[in-house]
C-alpha cells in the first residue's frame, strides 16, 4: 500500500516537474526575445489614458504645500514642519477631513520650483487643492543655508530680479491651474538677526519680503504671510542647531500664523 502511494506521488511530482521545466524554459526564452529585440516595440507606449481625476474631493480640505526645506520641515524634531502643525491646528477647528500633499524639496530655488510645476502630477495635485501654501526664495537669497556671503547690493539685486521674475511665473502658473484656491506664500525671516551685520542682513531680507509682497499683490487671492517679526527678537530660541532652519517652536509659530488666516477664509465659505 505504501509502495503504491509512493509510486503515485513519484509520478505526479515527476510530471508536474517536467511541465514546470517546460514552462520556465518558455519564460526564459520569452525574456530573451523580449529584452534583446525590444527595439521594434518602442511606439506602443503613448496610449496614455486621461482618466486622472482632477475633481476636488468633496468634504475634505486639501492643502497643497510646495517649496523648499521650510515647507518640508527641516529642523523640526518631529519632521512635520509648519505644514504638519498647520494641519493639526486646522483639525482642531473643523470637522472636515484635511488632506495634506507636501511636494516640497529641500534646497529648492524659485527656478527649481518653476521646473517642478511643469510635471503633470504636480499640476494635477495643484488643481485639486483647496488651499496652497508655499515657501520659496530662501535658497535664492541665502545660498543653501550658508551665510549671506556677499552683502554687496548689486549682487543681491541681481538675485532678487531673477527671483521676482520666477515667482511671477510661479504665481501665474498656479493661478492658471487653480483659479480658486488661496495661495499663502510664507515669507522670509532673517536667521542671522543676532549676528554682526544684522542691520544689513535684516534690511536685505525686509526689502526682499517687500518686493515679494508687491508681486503677490498683483494677483488675486495670494497672501504673502510675513514671518520676519516672529523671529526678530528671540531668533536663537526659534532656530534649529544649524542656525538657519526653524526648530519645532519656530515652525509652530509659522503654523499658527497661517492657520489663523485660513480660518477666516473657511468661515466665509461656510456662510
Amino acid at each position, binding site marked *: 500500500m505504501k509502495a503504491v502511494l509512493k509510486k503515485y506521488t513519484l509520478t505526479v*511530482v*515527476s510530471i508536474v516537474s517536467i511541465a514546470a521545466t517546460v*514552462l520556465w524554459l518558455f*519564460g526564459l526564452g*520569452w*525574456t530573451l526575445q523580449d529584452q534583446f529585440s525590444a527595439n521594434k516595440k518602442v511606439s506602443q*507606449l503613448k496610449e496614455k489614458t486621461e482618466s486622472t481625476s482632477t475633481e476636488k474631493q468633496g468634504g475634505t480640505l486639501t492643502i497643497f504645500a510646495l517649496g523648499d526645506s521650510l515647507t518640508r520641515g527641516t529642523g523640526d524634531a518631529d519632521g512635520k514642519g509648519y505644514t504638519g502643525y498647520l494641519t493639526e491646528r486646522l483639525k482642531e477647528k473643523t470637522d472636515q477631513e484635511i488632506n495634506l500633499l507636501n511636494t516640497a524639496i529641500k534646497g529648492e530655488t524659485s527656478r527649481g520650483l518653476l521646473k517642478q510645476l511643469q510635471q503633470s502630477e504636480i499640476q494635477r495635485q495643484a488643481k485639486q487643492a483647496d488651499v496652497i501654501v508655499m515657501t520659496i526664495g530662501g535658497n535664492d537669497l541665502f545660498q543653501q543655508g550658508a551665510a549671506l556671503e556677499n552683502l554687496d547690493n548689486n549682487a543681491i539685486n541681481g538675485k532678487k530680479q531673477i527671483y521676482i521674475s520666477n515667482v511671477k511665473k510661479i504665481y501665474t502658473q498656479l493661478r492658471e491651474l487653480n483659479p480658486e484656491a488661496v495661495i499663502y506664500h510664507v515669507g522670509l525671516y532673517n536667521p542671522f538677526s543676532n549676528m554682526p551685520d544684522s542691520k544689513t542682513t535684516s534690511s536685505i531680507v525686509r526689502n526682499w519680503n517687500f518686493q515679494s509682497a508687491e508681486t503677490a499683490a498683483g494677483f488675486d487671492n495670494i497672501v504673502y504671510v510675513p514671518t520676519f517679526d516672529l523671529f526678530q527678537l528671540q531668533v536663537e530660541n526659534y532656530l534649529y542647531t544649524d542656525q538657519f532652519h526653524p526648530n519645532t517652536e519656530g515652525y509652530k509659530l509659522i503654523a499658527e500664523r497661517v492657520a489663523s488666516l485660513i480660518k477666516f477664509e473657511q468661515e466665509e465659505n461656510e456662510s
Partner: protein
Amino acid sequence: MINLVRNEMLKLLRKKRLYVIILIIAFLVPLFTYAQFKEIQDQREKMGNQDWRTTLQQEITDTQNRLSSSRIQDEWRKFLKIRLSQQQYYLENDIDPRAPGAPTFMRIFVENSIDLLLPLLVMVIVADLVSSESSGGTIKLLLTRPVKRWRILLSKYLAMLLSISFIVLSVAVLSYGISGVVFGYGGWNMPLLTGFTVSGDELLTENVHIVPQWQYILMEFGLVWYVCMIVGTLTFMLSVLLRSTAAVMGIMLASLIAGAILANMVSSWESAKYFFMVNLNLTNYVSGMATPIEGMSLGFSMSVLAVWGIAGFIVAFVTFSKRDIY
C-alpha cells in the same frame, strides 16, 4: 535512462527534502504577505485613502529630498536617481507599479528572493545529491551496475533539474495562493514597463515597452529558474568533488552570502563582475534597477552565469568519470 532518473527522483522524495522546502516557503510567504499588508495599511493611514498617484508623487519628493542631502553615498545616490526617474516615468504613463494583488506580490517576492533565498533552497536539495552517496558508501553499489558512469551522473543531474523546476513552481503557486487571500487574486493584466537600460546614473527609456503583468511574471520566473539552475549546477559540481555534504553547503553558503555583500560594495572593483554570485540578480534588469558594477547588462550576466554553469558541469562529469572509487 528514464528508469535511472526515476530511481533518482524516488531517492529525492524519500529524503523528504522537497517537502521541507515547500514547508519553508509555505511558512515564509504568509510572513512576507503580512509585512506587505502592514506596509500598505500604514501608507493608507499616513496618507489618507488616496490616489496611488499622490502616494507615488509623495515618494518621488521624498527621494528628491534625500538626494539633495550632501551626506549621501555615491552608490546610493545613483540607485535613488535611477529609481526616481523610473517612478517618474511610471507616473507620466499613468501606470501604478504596485497596485496590490497576488500577482504583484508574487513579482515582488521573486525579485527579492532571486539572489539569496531561492539559491539557498536549491542548495538544500542539491548539496548531498552525490556527496551523500560517497560518504554513505552507496556509491559503490551504484557503480557496480553495468551502466556507464556519466549516465548515472546525468540521471542525478536531470533529477536535480526536475526538482529545481518543482521548487520554482511551488514558489509561484504558494506565493500566489497564500497572498491572494489578503490581496485578492486579480491583476494579471495590469500593464508594467520593462526595457529600461541603465547607463551611468542615467536611466535610458528608449527601449521601454509595456507588457502585461502575467508575461512579466513568466519572464521573471524564467530568469529565476535559470539562476537556480546555475547555482544548482555549481553545487552539484562541489557535491561531486567533496565527500562531505557539510563542506559543500558551507562553500556554497559562503559564496552566496559573499555575493550579496559584494553586490553592495564592489562598484569600484570592476573585475568582480565576473564572479557568478554578483550576477544573480537577473530580475533587476527586467525591472530596470541600477547594476552593482558599471557595464553589467542582462546579456552579460547571463553569459557569465552560463560560463560558470558549463564549467561546473564539465568539471563534475570529468571528475566523476575519472575518479577512483574505493
